[in-house]
């Protein structure tokens, strides 16, 4: 007994020692990262000459390679450390790395003259860096998931899909400072595209020397934007520092940006309330539903229009959903304003068309339908039921699918109740894990399914293009219409912007008469900031450029 007691004690002692060792080991590692971030999080140190901004993003950015990044978190950070040929200021496209941009008469050839700009390591930003980055994205072997955004460039699609060759690309380095880009079609929004992350340059020499140069911060991570990526603790935090070599460095006010990675919206809101962060909201994190009303009362909630739409798609190959009148009935019988006021709360605007009002040329309501038009909906339902040979709405069985999320579930339940009380249709909700849901959408294994669409560039085409054929990977409805396809095609070769918008409006009208999609609302972006943070406004693409932000305490 005694002996084994001793043995047990020894075991416990050993265990405790091991545990203690681990524990301290873990703690000792901390100071390294602590220097970087704790100093920043205390407000006082910011007084001492350097200006620091603290904010949080939702997650670890999956890729900090401009040409490989696909998600919004990576994109929000990349925009601060790189600069494309053009960039945005107050929602307008302005010259970025390019100093002068010339367009040929037919709108097909763009000639960019670069500024005398430098990389963070002092090298000159050359036309070659841009050509290298764009070609990298288009090279099939690099498998860039966002390469298609470069397709307006001549030969880009063919090369990317393995049908063309790199020599035929419309990207020409005239000299160190001149880049000539030839397009497939006149693309009026091309200068918006050149501000997009996939169009950012990368430092050719380092990228060629090290294949995974973008996986860590430090020496090999060279940027041409207002900030450099000074530190990156994976899944923990990122630190951006002002890039002294940036051409416009004199106008960059913030010296250091501490970005924490906080997934929980509630935690992020508490951090904002506790003063640990200076800004909360799009495009970095989301303002939690729980605190929206309070921030509204406090008068600090900023709401800005966003070029994005929340919608329910209909599977038109389904027996019931194949009926346009049923689709119309369901589309009309949605109380969008009620939904926005009570559930989503972000002062979104009811979507009564397919193109958000934040898009140029589409600011006016085209009058396709009235919000929550129950009368018309009932009429359409009547017709639809007759066509289907059904007597009563209760004979319809409709399944509304969405992916796992409390917000989607709340919206679905609100709409479900509306359809039930106004149309007498019993709807079952079908919620599934994100990838399972995507699978259902692509395989048309659903009836009604929710989806959001966010513009990469602020043009109506991005919202309409996906329905140009049933084969389009983003269509997911099985719907197509020859006239619609033709209108979109015409819009592509139309050089007169007014006429082009007219064509796109006609296309939108077709969508809104056949209802393959029920638009629900146009997104808004919500954010809150401390009152000493200045000029931190979002544009309609949800961008924030920290370059313009200042802190005045």
């Amino acid at each position, binding site marked *: 007994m005694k002996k084994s007691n001793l043995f047990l004690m020894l075991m416990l002692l050993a265990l405790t020692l091991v545990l203690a060792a681990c524990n301290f080991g873990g703690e000792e590692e901390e100071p390294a990262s602590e220097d970087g971030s704790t100093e920043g999080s205390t407000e006082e140190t910011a007084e001492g000459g350097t200006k620091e901004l603290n904010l949080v993003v939702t997650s670890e950015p999956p890729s900090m390679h401009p040409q490989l990044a696909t998600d919004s978190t990576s994109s929000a950070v990349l925009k601060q450390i790189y600069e494309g040929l053009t960039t945005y200021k107050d929602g307008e496209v302005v010259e970025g790395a390019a100093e002068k941009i010339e367009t040929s008469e037919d709108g097909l050839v763009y000639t960019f003259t670069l500024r005398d700009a430098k990389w963070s390591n002092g090298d000159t930003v050359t036309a070659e860096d841009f050509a290298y980055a764009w070609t990298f994205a288009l090279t099939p072997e690099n498998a860039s998931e966002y390469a298609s955004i470069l397709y307006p460039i001549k030969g880009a699609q063919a090369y990317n899909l393995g049908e063309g060759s790199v020599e035929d690309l419309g990207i020409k380095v005239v000299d160190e400072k001149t880049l000539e880009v030839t397009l497939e079609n006149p693309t009026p929004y091309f200068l918006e595209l050149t501000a997009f992350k996939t169009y950012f340059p990368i430092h050719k020499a380092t990228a060629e020397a090290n294949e995974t140069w973008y996986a860590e911060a430090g020496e090999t991570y060279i940027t041409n934007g207002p900030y450099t990526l000074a530190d990156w603790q994976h899944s923990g935090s990122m630190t951006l520092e002002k890039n002294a070599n940036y051409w416009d460095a004199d106008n960059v006010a913030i010296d250091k940006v501490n970005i924490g990675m906080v997934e929980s919206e*509630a935690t992020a809101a508490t951090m904002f309330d506790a003063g640990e962060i200076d800004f909360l909201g799009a495009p970095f994190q989301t303002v939690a539903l729980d605190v929206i009303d309070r921030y509204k009362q406090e008068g600090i909630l900023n709401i800005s229009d966003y070029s994005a739409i929340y919608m329910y798609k209909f599977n038109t190959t389904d027996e019931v959903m194949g009926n346009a009148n049923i689709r119309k009935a369901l589309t009309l019988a949605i109380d969008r304003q009620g939904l926005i006021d009570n559930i989503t709360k972000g002062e979104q605007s009811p979507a009564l068309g397919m193109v958000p009002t934040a898009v140029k040329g589409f600011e006016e309501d085209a009058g396709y339908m009235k919000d929550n038009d129950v009368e018309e909906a009932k009429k359409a339902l009547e017709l639809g039921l007759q066509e289907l040979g059904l007597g009563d709405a209760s004979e319809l069985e409709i399944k509304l699918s969405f992916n796992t999320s*409390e917000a989607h579930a709340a919206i679905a339940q609100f709409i479900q*109740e509306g359809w039930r009380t106004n149309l007498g249709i019993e709807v079952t909700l079908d919620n599934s894990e994100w990838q*399972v849901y995507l699978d259902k959408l692509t395989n048309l294994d659903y009836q009604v399914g929710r989806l959001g669409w966010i513009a990469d560039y602020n043009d109506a085409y991005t919202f309409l293009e996906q329905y140009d054929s049933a084969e389009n990977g983003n269509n997911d409805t099985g719907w197509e219409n020859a006239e619609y396809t033709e209108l979109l095609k015409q819009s592509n070769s139309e050089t007169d912007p007014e006429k082009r918008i007219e064509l796109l409006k006609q296309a939108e009208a077709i969508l809104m008469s056949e209802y393959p999609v029920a638009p629900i609302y146009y997104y808004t972006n919500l954010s809150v900031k401390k009152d000493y943070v200045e000029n931190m406004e979002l544009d309609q693409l949800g961008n924030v450029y920290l370059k313009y932000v200042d802190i005045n305490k």
Partner: protein
Amino acid sequence: MAKKDLQFGNIEPDKFRVVGIKQDETEKLADKSVSFWKEVFLRFSQNKLAIFGIIALVIIALLAIFVPVFSPYSYREQLGIYNAPPSASHWFGTDDLGRDVFVRVWQGARISLFIGITAAVIDLIIGVLWGSISGLAGGRLDNIMMRIADVLSAVPYLLVVIILLVVLEPGLLPMIIALSITGWINMARIVRGEVLSIKNQEYVLAARTLGASTWHLIKRHLVPNALGAILVTMTLTIPSAIFTESFLSYLGLGVPAPTASWGTMASEGNKALTSAPWRLFFPAFFISLTIFAFNAVGDGLRDALDPKLRK
């Protein structure tokens, strides 16, 4: 040996005499005969906490049965009053979709209690059998059975749920299946541990020597002696099943919205902690109360059944 001892004491055999077997006297009971179950019941009914537990459970069950029937509101009806605090017309307030939380709590009780109890019973049956067979058998069979349990608990549960999500239609059955896949493992491990320590004790060895069957051993010796640990494990199973249900529903495997359950109400309410705390408080309170009641009953049962505590 025995002989020597006798000699050592210098005890002469002629000091003893044979009296014969007094059959009637040995069989005579000193006290009034009380059947085992009656005694258990008596002892249980003297335990105030356990009685409280029973009453609480009965009330919760009655409310779950009758409130949804008699309430002026239905669990899915959206009343247009969003996130209203508790008031005379809505005792527990309303939720984000303007539904009456009171009726939803009791509607939710139906599903959560069903899930909790079913999961506990399944875990009990599989876990106790698995654990006691494994512990009793020992050797290779024990090793294989316990490694199966290890494998099941190491394979990513989320992946299993996703596969179930694809294969099965959402509803109660897939939920029960998902809960049963891994739920029993904890129980099996604990029962096995208990069995290992009990099986080498003298009374079990004695029973074995007397030719008791394995089933008899499990039923008469192992389970009663491991009862404390089993009951405690069951009280953990119920809340974990209630919350796993909300996780599974969240992923799409459970009962579809707008059906309420305590787990989903609590997790959704947790998101409204600062703006509508009643949405978290009421479901969480009733979960705790239920677990507390089950626990009190469990403790009472244990005390009542414990052969060593018999007077």
